[in-house]
């Protein structure tokens, strides 16, 4: 019988199999950041172990970094960042610190350097490592004990995953993006629906996505409880990788592409579960609750918990209380005070372009603050070269330095209690963006339109801009 994409990558990395034991898998790339690594390095020191493959390990600073110029002022954050620097120096690991041209969110940095390639195993002490699955890599988040294990051995003992096909066929309507696909998937299968599975996203709507769109989809696989999300590599993948700093060159490139072309699910392979979604029926999607599965199309209203089964009802009742929402309220009537565009989910150049295209020539609504935070220093430079920073600042948004920012309340960018955001990040958990803060997860297009109107909106809700009169015509009129 044929094998799925996930099974092929798995099989290619088995170092050892033993009766009644998990397989020992080799890890091709290990990414580190300051939050989940200090205790792992401590463990190495205590047992006198070196890092086995410093050349397959890379660190960046992202979770704690402020996105305004200047040093870290919180002493505990500073300790964590300094600890990473000391550990990287002591163990000989390459680090991209704050201010470095390559610094950024760990899941933006790996792909843009060309370090994330098809068929690899990629791990990081961060659940959103699933992002890298967009390249046909088997990529997943690990805990700190596992970080130590990979540092010491470059392997992990792992139990096999089950596989789930998520087929998204059809064409997305205007104003509907990859974020809406993945929010709809999570709402359909639930936050535990992917538990134990590697999801493979397939179908014409997935094939039509750019690499950046695919990264958004795979990034949020973890929000469905899945261990990883994957997309088979194709010409889009190869075109994205070719010429990047760490991509193979010359004959190596040809050899690599030849092997990458084998990385697809065989026709006679069987998945353990299958889900089908019609892309043409999708519309902009937003969350109303406190887990990423509590979402609905923007055109709907806040659902009534009374219509749900027991467990869901309790969770929805709590969520509505925390979110300060009443069942039956049209989602478009919900007023927000903060808009966040950024994170490992939607902090890439295409995301910023999409948001900029909506706010260009418009103003952020009174009483709304809009933060635009590029996912990496490279993304920031690229955006500035395209003039996107000016588009945002002219609209009244704040243009920031790269980092995890308001995705999680570990740095100065936070919601105050009771504040409500439309956020392109990945989690709407209670307190995720700041104690008492309320989060609605949205796409960059919806975030930008919401910033302009001050209520949850899609670009189609905006008044068309006055057509610009060409300068030549003005001169003619004056004459």
């Amino acid at each position, binding site marked *: 019988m044929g094998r799925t994409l996930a099974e092929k990558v798995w099989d290619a990395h088995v*170092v050892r199999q033993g009766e*009644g034991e998990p397989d020992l898998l*080799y890890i*091709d*790339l290990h990414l580190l950041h300051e*939050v*989940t690594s*200090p*205790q792992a390095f401590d463990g190495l020191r205590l047992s006198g172990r070196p890092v*086995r493959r*410093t*050349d*397959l*390990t*890379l660190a960046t600073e992202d979770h*704690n970094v402020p996105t305004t110029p200047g040093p870290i002022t*919180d002493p*505990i*954050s500073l*300790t964590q960042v300094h600890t990473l620097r000391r550990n990287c120096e002591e163990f000989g690991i*390459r680090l991209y610190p704050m201010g470095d041209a390559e610094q950024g969110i760990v899941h933006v940095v790996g792909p843009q350097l*060309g*370090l994330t*390639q098809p068929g*690899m195993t990629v791990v990081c*002490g961060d*659940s959103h490592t699933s992002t890298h699955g967009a390249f046909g890599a088997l990529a*997943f*988040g690990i*805990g*700190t*004990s*596992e970080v130590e*294990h990979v540092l*010491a*051995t*470059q392997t992990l*003992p792992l139990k096999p995953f089950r596989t789930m096909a998520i087929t998204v066929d059809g064409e997305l309507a205007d104003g509907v993006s990859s974020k809406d696909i993945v929010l709809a998937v999570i709402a359909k299968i639930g*936050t*535990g629906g992917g*538990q134990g599975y590697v999801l493979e996203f397939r179908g014409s709507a997935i094939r039509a996505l750019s690499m950046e769109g695919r990264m958004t989809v795979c990034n949020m696989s973890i*929000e469905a*409880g899945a261990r990883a999300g994957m997309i088979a590599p194709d010409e889009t993948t190869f075109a994205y990788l070719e010429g990047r700093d*760490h*991509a193979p060159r010359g004959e*190596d490139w040809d*050899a*690599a592409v030849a092997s990458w072309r084998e990385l697809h699910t065989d026709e006679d392979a069987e998945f353990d579960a299958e889900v089908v979604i019609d892309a043409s029926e999708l519309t902009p999607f937003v969350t109303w609750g406190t*887990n990423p599965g509590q979402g609905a199309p923007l055109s709907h209203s806040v659902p009534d918990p009374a219509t749900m089964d027991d*467990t869901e009802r*309790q*969770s929805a009742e709590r969520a509505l209380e925390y979110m300060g929402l009443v069942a039956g309220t049209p989602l478009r009537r919900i007023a927000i005070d903060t808009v966040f565009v950024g994170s490992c989910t939607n902090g890439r150049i295409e995301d910023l372009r999409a948001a900029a295209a909506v706010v260009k020539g418009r103003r952020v609504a009174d009483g709304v603050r809009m933060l635009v935070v590029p996912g990496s220093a490279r993304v920031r430079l690229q955006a500035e070269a395209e003039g996107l920073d000016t588009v945002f600042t002219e609209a009244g948004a704040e243009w920031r330095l790269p980092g995890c920012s308001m995705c*999680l*309340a*570990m740095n100065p960018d936070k919601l105050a209690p009771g504040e409500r955001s439309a956020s392109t990040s990945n*989690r709407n*958990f209670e*307190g*995720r963006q700041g*104690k008492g803060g309320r989060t609605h997860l949205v796409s960059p297009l919806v975030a930008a339109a919401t910033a302009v109107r001050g209520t949850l909106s899609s670009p189609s809700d905006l008044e068309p801009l006055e057509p610009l009169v060409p300068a030549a015509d003005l001169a003619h009129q004056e004459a």
Partner: protein
Amino acid sequence: MDAFTTHTGTGVPLRRSNVDTDQIIPAEYLKRVTKSGFEDGLFAAWRKDETFILNDPTYAAGSILVAGPDFGTGSSREHAVWALMNYGFRVVVSSRFADIFRGNSGKAGLLTAQCSQDDVELLWKLLENEPGTSVTVDLVSRTITAGDVVAAFDVDEYTRWRLLEGLDDISLTLRHEPDITAYEQLRPAWKPVTG
């Protein structure tokens, strides 16, 4: 890691589903660089509510948490496991655990006992009707016993063996170091390096 064979302690009924790791320990508490001291952050937001279960003195010394389905979803932070263990928990019982949380627990020595939701409901009822009831979790026979309730639980065989023996994963893997070296020699030369 300390070996785990059987544990008896106070059961704490936590009637919530989808307890994500941001609730177990919010991000602001993740800045320590040690594995201890995280008990302050355990369920920090919920503990501000005086009706929250852990604020009831009867349950304050609890060491077995009985929670709703999908426990430990979200962030991979192992700090969630350390916070539970630093507080004094040795076992979490639920009908479904998030993968990463369960993996982290196994490495750190926290037992995640998966049993049916019906058994969770029976335990909740018992622990609410008779607060402070002592619960025994036996990893050898894979059973939870409390009052009249006897519930079987699942834990994967390998994790069970490691917990029973108190074995450290890294030492186990390093026994196979020659296999790792052999694998490395077969990796294609074009695979990327970070240096």
